[in-house]
């Protein structure tokens, strides 16, 4: 993997993407993915202006709409898969709550503190098992879908993949904006964007950054219904390995909740949890972090505001887990 992948925080009203593209020597046309904006995908004038270079919008959302309109048999199968994934997400979410409840109940027992510490590890392991199982089941469903429907051979999808490939070949880089994470993942996969982007540099922010990691985690510490628990949505495309990206921490993360941070960081280990605010940046070169300026969530419950990308030490058990050697 020789490509450069640059993850950014939310762009907000003062985007820094132009500066970042310039720093990496991108002067020519870039391919832009705005599928996360769904129906607003083509309202792209302001965003393209903010890039400082010419851009072509790959219009993955619109292409998806075309496919779903013109290929009703495939659409029915696709919608059934999505429905099943939604149900699975909902059941997984219910189980997370129950583990959380059990963890709290156990944690307030008046027993030997050492035993409570062991029990806390059990609780974290239960989260990890559930997360891993959820990812595995989602992956199995997607794989079965691909095999059943031979997505690449559907005529309109094949045509659009070829068009996207051509647009990518004529572009100097791929830029992926934020937006609706599920829409973004699905459209990027449907049109195999990373398969055709070969080793082009990739610049992405917010949801765009999340999809490039190994694991996509939905989170919000201040939901309108009071409280919620972070949930794994799915695997990402793995082009920015080793981290979990948490964009927009000012609005969505309670960085003062030490116990919550501690448990979340342990739950995700050996992946490093990184909060990315506006102006933050993580650069991957050949799959390794070569530069970072973001906030790391530590297993101690502390945060490291100026994390430079230095590797974090993990136990042998965590590393085994990362290699898929969990029971």
């Amino acid at each position: 993997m020789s490509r450069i992948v640059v993850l950014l925080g939310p762009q907000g009203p003062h985007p820094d993407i132009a500066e970042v593209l310039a720093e990496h020597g991108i002067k020519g046309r870039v391919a832009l993915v705005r599928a996360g904006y769904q129906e607003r995908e083509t309202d792209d004038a302001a965003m393209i202006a903010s890039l400082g270079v010419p851009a072509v919008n790959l219009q993955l959302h619109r292409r998806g709409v075309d496919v779903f309109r013109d290929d009703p048999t495939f659409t029915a199968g696709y919608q059934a898969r999505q429905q099943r994934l939604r149900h699975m997400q909902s059941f997984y979410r219910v189980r997370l709550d129950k583990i959380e409840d059990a963890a709290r109940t156990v944690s307030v027992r008046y027993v030997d503190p050492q035993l409570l510490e062991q029990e806390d590890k059990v609780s974290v392991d239960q989260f990890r098992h559930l997360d891993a199982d959820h990812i595995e089941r989602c992956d199995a469903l997607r794989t079965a879908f691909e095999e059943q429907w031979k997505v690449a051979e559907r005529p309109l999808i094949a045509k659009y993949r070829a068009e996207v490939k051509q647009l990518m070949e004529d572009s100097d880089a791929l830029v992926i904006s934020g937006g609706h994470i599920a829409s973004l993942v699905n459209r990027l996969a449907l049109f195999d964007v990373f398969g055709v982007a070969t080793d082009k540099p990739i610049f992405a922010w917010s949801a765009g950054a999340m999809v490039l990691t190994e694991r996509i985690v939905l989170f919000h510490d201040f939901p309108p219904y009071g409280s919620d628990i972070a949930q794994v949505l799915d695997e990402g495309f793995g082009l920015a390995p080793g981290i979990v990206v948490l964009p927009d921490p000012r609005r969505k993360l309670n960085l003062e909740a030490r116990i919550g941070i501690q448990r979340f960081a342990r739950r995700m280990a050996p992946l490093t949890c990184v909060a990315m605010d506006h102006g933050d940046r993580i650069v991957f070169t050949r799959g390794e972090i070569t530069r970072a300026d973001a906030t790391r969530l530590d297993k101690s419950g502390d945060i490291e505001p100026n994390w430079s990308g230095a590797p974090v030490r993990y136990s042998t058990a965590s590393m085994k887990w990362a290699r898929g050697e969990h029971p």
Partner: protein
Amino acid sequence: MIGKAIKELEASARSREAVDAWFAARTFPIVDGNFITFVWRGEAEAVHLKHWVFGLPSSQSLARVDKTDVWHLTLQLPAASRVEYKLEIVRNGHGEWSQDPLNPNRARDPFGGNSVAHGTGYEIPTWIQPDPGAAKGHRDEIWIDSKTFGRRGFGLYVPSRFQRNRQYPLLVVHDGHDYLRYAALGSVLDNMIDRLELADAIVVFTSSPDRLREYADDERHAKFLVEELVPYIERLFPLDAQPQGRCLMGASFGAVATLSTAQRYPGFFGRLLLQSGSFAFTDIGDRNHRGPLFDPVVAFMNRFRADPKPVSERVFVSCGMYESLIYENRSLVPLLLSTGMDVRYVEARDGHNWENWRDRLREGLSWLMPGPFLHVYE
């Protein structure tokens, strides 16, 4: 109990000028920490505070500050409380109820309106105010020729981003027109949908000409909703016609109608919002102290309590701590939980009124029918 401000008035010269200055320096009622002082000024034989806080005497006398025309009453008011009240002014042996002329905070309801006292820390939610930046849904009134009830009108809300090629969840609101008038439901829907907190939804506002009868476990009502109204809306709009895509809600007797409909058609509405439900029951005998209107409710609740079933998937229950129904609602929650349904229960320091129900809408609706806010990272 005499409030600090009243003690200051008593310590003053009590001249007209001194009293005028005392009034000019304050807003009313006077909230000081966990205490509230109601004040009225004028000539009367007696002044009473009338309120509906369960557990306190519903009528309490204001005392007169000697040598003035100032009347006062200080009570405990826990933080974040919201209390609706009126003042009764007695002249010539005749009492007249009125809103508190010194208090600009008013709440409207189908019976008129009340003055509202806000305890320390209570804030009117910002998300109920019309937001000029939020896209407005389209509202309409349409009619259905019902085999059950004849011709019936109902309100309709279509979200601003509506597109024919998408599927939408459906929210059916008992007493929907009152929710629009007294609980700001129109603004709440616009704001929550615009902020991605609530799914883009088709909303139906029903109103019954005979709600106390039709909502009290009347099988005709459930049949009308499930077999006529919802299918009719499903023919008009592209709806996600599954339990997860259907939410039924109501307050007071409307909450009874909601639970009763779910009980008669288990699994049809996958989401229920029950606000201050009139869930009267008995542990022995079949007559509740609330009177004959509640008889069918008591019979229904006693049956439900004897054999609770999972009639929906997700149920949000809210009730005010100052309502007489708090006991019934608190009693219901463990029963709902025992069925395996996903249940959230929220209490507020408020009474049986529309603004209490308004203030809980965001929490309830966003949990039952969440918008994409958890999926959007821009």
